[in-house]
């Protein structure tokens, strides 16, 4: 009985997080905002599901496999998200690096007075 309750709570949380994230994806305005929502699924829902499998399953091979799936999703999604954001920015602006006229403050960089010469100072 208690086993079923714990499992139900874990799966319920995972499903709820996934549904809310999918809803967030549909509601947001631009790709940068939308990209954030897959991180919720990958970093929370997948861990909760892995915990549920770990709790329910006694077979060590299955436990290791589900942890592996979670780890793969976790590591790959961060790379994929940043790469997608970069691709969207290059598509929109034609460049990836922030330019002076965009008004984006970059730590460790001093813009020269005349345009974007990209004179870079490394952080001390």
């Amino acid at each position, binding site marked *: 009985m208690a086993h079923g309750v714990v*499992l139900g709570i874990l799966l319920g949380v995972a499903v709820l997080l996934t549904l809310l994230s999918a809803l967030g994806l549909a509601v947001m305005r631009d*790709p940068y905002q*939308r990209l954030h929502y897959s991180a919720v699924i990958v970093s929370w829902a997948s861990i909760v599901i892995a915990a549920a499998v770990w709790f329910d399953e006694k077979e060590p091979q299955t436990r290791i*496999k589900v942890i592996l799936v979670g780890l*793969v999703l976790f590591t*790959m*999604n961060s*790379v994929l998200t940043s*790469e997608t954001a970069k*691709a969207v920015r290059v598509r929109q602006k034609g460049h990836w690096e922030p330019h002076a006229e965009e008004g984006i403050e970059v730590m460790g960089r001093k813009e020269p007075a005349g345009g974007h010469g990209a004179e870079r100072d490394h952080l001390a």
Partner: protein
Amino acid sequence: MDKLWLYAAACMMAALLPCLITVFRGKPGDRLAALEMGSVIVTLEMVLLAQGYHRPVMYDLALTLALLSFGGGMVFARFLERWL
């Protein structure tokens, strides 16, 4: 107890609907974001179904899908950058 997994899988399938709508209606960047989220959801769906039906071999499928969706997403991102 197994039904819990199958109910969760069925409920999680509903999360694919917003992804599908965004894929059909959004701009290219939005579509790619929705596609990536959809592939993550389908991977987790595989895990839930594998546990619900007691088919450990389906975990391999989930793992393969996770790896391939990463490669696919990277290729799409590269193409989106310049050519699409």
